[in-house]
């Protein structure tokens, strides 16, 4: 018994280190950016199931540009454009053509898995990895993405609460009919929200490939879905969404530490930890925030 307590105490103490904090930050960034992007899109009334595709295309584009130009800045910009491109397709289907938003999102995610593999094959002659690139690696405090994520969080919060676009996005997600009656274009506002949100999510993808110095097929591995859960748990409010993502990042970092510390638990179970946390939080925090009333209901 005393041994167990001592082990837990030692484990917790081991967490309180700079490297652990760095790990949390590194892990949180893609969740955070994808979820902020998703929150903006959903506030406009569109179900954003395509976050996975935005992360994946962002990651691939960042790796490809970093490989060709060696520029991290261009790689990040490219990831934003790639995310926005996915958003443009999503908008075309869901807003212009009136397709089901959930089906559109799932289709984009599946297409992203296949298309990035195909592009790997065509561009680099291998189906699962890009060549090694000069990315960001394990750096945290000197990584531009760390600070960009912080800035984008502030941008998302201010945009929703205090800008003309933000007010229109909030209105259009709630009462599209009333928004149109006020002379605001419903489709135009939604398009703007999707493009901004998707670009931010795409930047989250850049973090995935640049910290491991290369693109790996399917490296988003479900983070887009976890990010969507964070959007819901954060009640569609950017500041709360950001906090929930930080929680996910911390849970995943603890999980990684537990694996390396050797807890005796099967690693497969330990890896479940963040997802179990998501499930528990989803069930308990439900009802705290409220979904935009027009979410998923088309125009």
């Amino acid at each position, binding site marked *: 018994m005393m041994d167990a307590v001592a082990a837990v105490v030692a484990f917790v103490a081991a967490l309180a280190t700079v490297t652990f904090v760095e790990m949390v930050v590194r892990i949180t960034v893609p969740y955070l950016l994808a979820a902020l992007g998703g929150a903006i899109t959903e506030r406009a009334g569109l179900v954003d199931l395509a976050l996975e595709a935005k992360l994946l295309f962002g990651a691939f584009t960042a790796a490809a540009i970093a490989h060709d130009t060696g520029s991290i800045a261009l790689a990040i910009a490219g990831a934003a454009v790639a995310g926005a491109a996915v958003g443009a397709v999503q908008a075309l289907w869901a807003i212009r053509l009136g397709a089901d938003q959930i089906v559109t999102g799932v289709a984009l995610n599946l297409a992203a898995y296949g298309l990035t593999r195909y592009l790997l094959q065509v561009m680099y002659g291998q189906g699962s990895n890009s060549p090694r690139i000069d990315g960001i690696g394990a750096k945290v405090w000197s990584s531009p993405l760390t600070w960009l994520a912080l800035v984008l969080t502030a941008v998302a919060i201010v945009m929703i609460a*205090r800008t*003309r676009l933000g*007010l229109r996005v909030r*209105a259009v997600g709630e009462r599209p009919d009333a928004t149109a009656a006020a002379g605001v274009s419903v489709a135009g506002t939604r398009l703007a929200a999707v493009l901004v949100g998707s670009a931010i999510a795409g930047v989250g993808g850049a973090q995935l490939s640049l910290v491991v110095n290369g693109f790996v097929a399917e490296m988003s591995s479900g983070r887009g879905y976890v990010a969507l859960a964070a959007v819901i748990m954060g009640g569609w409010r950017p500041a709360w969404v950001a906090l929930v993502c930080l929680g996910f990042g911390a849970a995943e970092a603890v999980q990684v530490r537990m694996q390396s510390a050797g807890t005796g638990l099967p690693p497969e179970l330990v890896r479940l930890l963040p997802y179990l946390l998501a499930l528990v939080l989803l069930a308990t925090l439900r009802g705290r925030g409220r979904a935009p009333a027009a979410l998923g209901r088309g125009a």
Partner: protein
Amino acid sequence: MSAALVMRASKRFGDRDALVDARLEVAAGTVHAVVGENGAGKSTLLKIVYGLVRADRGQLAIGQRCDLARHGVAAAQALGVGMVHQHGMLVPTLTLAENAALGHEPVRRGLLDLAAARRDLARAAARLEQSLDPDACAGALSVGEQQRAEIVMVVARAQKLLILDEPTALLAPGEVDRLLALLRRIAGDGCAVVLVSHKLDEVAEVADAITVLRAGRTVAELARGVATREVARAMVGGEPPPTGAPPPLPPADAAVVLMVRGLAVHDLSGAATLRPGAGSAGGLRQVSFEVRAGEVVGIAGVEGNGQRELVQAVVGLVPAAAGRITLGGVDMTHATVAARRAAGLAHVAEDRHHHGLVLDATVADNVMLGRLDEVARGLTIDRTRVRTLAERALADLDVRPADPSLAARALSGGNQQKLVVARELGRAAVRAVVAAQPTRGVDLAAQARIHDRLRAAAAAGAAVLVISADLDELFALCHRVAVLHRGAIAGELAGDALRAADARATLGAWMVGAA
């Protein structure tokens, strides 16, 4: 006096003529009412003025001549036209200032200038002597407050012509008076006000002139002071159906059929989670009443004060959180919908599209719904019997067209509602009737039919509970009227007190919690 609006318009929707060269002329600085039955074309005519609907043919002049082919909302707004829609166009999650700013947001250094939006709204409200809180969340206000705020916003931008579509449909009597006073004031400031309505009492009270539409045509243009009866005759194209009086009072010792004791029901609107503590009524609390055989009891109240919760709990669609419901002396608090129906409970649902009818099914199949016991033959359905039942139901309330094979969707709103009433009241052995807003959105003729059928049910010994936001309907049907306010019964009038001259004012005060 100069004309604020001069128009003639024709419009077809599919193969139906909505407007046939309908004419409307409104003088500046007056309140002008446009009246007519449902489907007469009132809303279409005014949506053309506001640019929401494009006319096929016609002319339009709003101070200056307009090109009808290119007329749109933006053009109408530029000419000083504003419209307040029947169901309100405020975004409930935004503050009043944010709602006012939407579409023409003041921006300072790239950010929303909410201080300016607040100031503009407060100034507009002060000009009309209205008090409102620019920082209040729109969804937390009463329907009347929301509407007044919306009028302030619209009038602040539209200074030549204000259009209101059925503005009093959801208001309590006291709030109606405040609204009408506000409209007079706006007209006094020189802005023409066009009021679409079918409540002739209000029209007579406030309008300087009345245009009557029937079947898409302008059939009368009347001046102030014309008797309400004349207006009604023009509306229906003949003698209006009599409004009628309640059926004879049942003997005092008639058996209690429907009894509700201490009923509490959780809020169905989700309003409590939407804005905790922000004036939400929060379902139903501690409601008790009883309805005797042959008696008609009315439940009045502004919508959202627990009516929906009460109806759904009594018919068994939602569970009671506390209390007891008995039907014919048998405890039905936890009984299923089917068991309650089997015990003789009929339900005319508030929303015929969601709870009353399967719109894509045929009229015959809709009549069969909930009456399978009457048409089942072993495991199959007796189709001839279904047809007989359907034909009987159609004849019972004169549903037109009387074709059982038609999809329910093909019927007009009034005929759909008559179909629901015919099905529910035509069942064998109806002992209690719960009728929620039984004549909402139906024309006068259909309303008279439905009222007659409800009276007949009571005369035949059923206990009838009518839930309605329309006091005229309750006066015409009920022996007793209770008022729901914030989920509890605020008061009840019966007998002479219900027939007294001040009954409307008393009920109205209870409805807004002023007593």
